[in-house]
């Protein structure tokens, strides 16, 4: 007798509700088997189970943790760009992948990807009183005060980064 056949036989003698739970479980396992690597939400049965055989594995059936889920709160407005210079070192190193969410409003101390007078730079935004400045974390670079004559366009707020150690 197959595993499923055996289980169904046991269950049929116990409780109809349990059969439903079991079948649902099978569906979930099939989903995992088919290697759907997309992050998906698996609802779990939360009622009490009378049968020990099927109660123990409840905790196993949770999806993999997903970096997309963690860092892409707004998929449509999330862009990846690459870091170039060392002005934000040691926080940001050249060739790091910067995760930018354009839906987030830049505030004081946000790290922003910004177009400034024709160059594309990554800086920390300092907003104190009426003064606006672009701060480099690397002390080698002085802060840049933003004046009215500057051409400024924020591309987006940097919400995280990915670094490949290889």
């Amino acid at each position, binding site marked *: 007798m197959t595993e499923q056949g055996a289980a169904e036989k046991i269950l049929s003698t116990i409780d109809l509700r349990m059969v439903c739970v079991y079948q649902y479980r099978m569906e979930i396992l099939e989903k995992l088997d088919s290697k759907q690597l997309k992050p998906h939400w698996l609802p779990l049965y939360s009622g009490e189970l009378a049968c020990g055989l099927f109660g123990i594995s409840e905790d196993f059936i949770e999806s993999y943790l997903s970096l997309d889920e963690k860092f892409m709160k*707004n*998929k*449509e*407005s999330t*862009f*990846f*760009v*690459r*870091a*170039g*210079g060392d*002005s934000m070192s040691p926080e940001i190193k050249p060739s790091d*992948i*910067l995760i930018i969410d*354009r*839906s987030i409003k830049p505030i004081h101390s946000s790290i922003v*990807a*910004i*177009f400034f007078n*024709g*160059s*594309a*730079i*990554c800086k920390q935004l300092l907003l104190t009183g009426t003064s606006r400045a672009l701060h480099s974390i690397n002390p080698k670079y002085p802060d840049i005060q933003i004046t009215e004559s500057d051409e400024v*366009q924020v*591309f987006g707020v940097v919400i995280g980064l990915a670094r490949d150690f290889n």
Partner: protein
Amino acid sequence: MNKVIALIDCNSFYCSCERLFRPDLRNKPVIVLSNNDGCAIARTKEAKELGIKMGAPYFKIKNFCEQNNVAVFSTNFSLYTNISERVMQTLIRNSPEVELYSIDEAFLNLTGVADPELFSRELRSKVLRNIGIPTGVGVAPTKVLCKVANHFAKRSDKAGGVVSLMSEKLQTIALSRLPIEDVWGVGRQNSIKMKSLGIKTALDLRDYKNEHLVRRMFSVIGLKIKHELMGINCFEFNEPIKNKKEIMCSRTFSGVINEKKALKEAISNYISNAALKLRQQNSLCHKVTVFFRTNPFNNSEQSYVYGEEKLVNPTCNTLKLIKVAESLIDLKYQEGYEYKKAGAKLSGFTGQDEFQVNFLDDTDTEEEMNLMRCMDKINYLEGDQTLKSLSCGTDDKAWRMNRRFKSPRYTTSWNELYTFD
């Protein structure tokens, strides 16, 4: 209750995508060229103001563009489709009901929304901030009136990108200012006929008394357009998309082709493209057509070759279709000509589940279908042409498309990400 529909449309979409990572091009003229850098297919407002026409051949405007600092781009479809997807998902996520209409426009059903105009303004600024693409929104009771509203949303400075034509009074004013040829679906030919009836503006068509005549001269569609202008819904929301009746793929070569092998490779590629589209709409085709011709602008001897074959059993299998196309080329190819353009066409479609089986010939087996599905999936995930028939060739120099001004694939390739210093 009266319907409320909005049409949201990205401003010069391809150009706006190119501007996303090129802030220096803000307020500057930008154009995007068609496949093979043939002619201008997208222009910013600034480029239109310079007088660059839609479809202008690039070789004719090349010097003009250089003199006037017009930024010129080849098509970068991986960028455009990615940005389009972002815009559409934002619309879907934020509106009650969406009908995706094309790569850069969508209808929204705003019936029941408290303040449709305010809703549109907020949605518009969300798309602008979150993705960086400027849009125009037209709000009205019917789709054709939406198009009219959208027309003015894009052209009026004080509209702020949104025009609402919900009242008849506003509709009358707007329609009186809209030339008949700019009405959605009318077209150039029909607009000439309409003018002969004294219909010069959209308002003239709306108020035209003789509906029989409109119907007789411009078919049911013409009458529907008139009714839509009157505020009567004729084009339903989310009408099912009709499958295509034929699929064609053709290109002009950057050089010339004067050997059979290269021509076969080129046409195999066109067949592959067309067969993919065929499978996407779940159709099978009964007929394969190939054609190739010399350059009609040259004085040399001309050749125009056209061949078609009917299939006993319909198929959507790329490999079988290529075989048919190759045998047609073998049959029709003429030595000694320099071919400049070639193409392939698939036609005679039936649905995948409604054709009659002929037992003498081989129909597509489940195995073949799986192979096609697998190939399409790999090519979707890894990029076009990752997996292809060897008939398509390994060296595409001879017939490769010109894309001299292509921007990087900023959003779809890890190796081509934009750099912030």
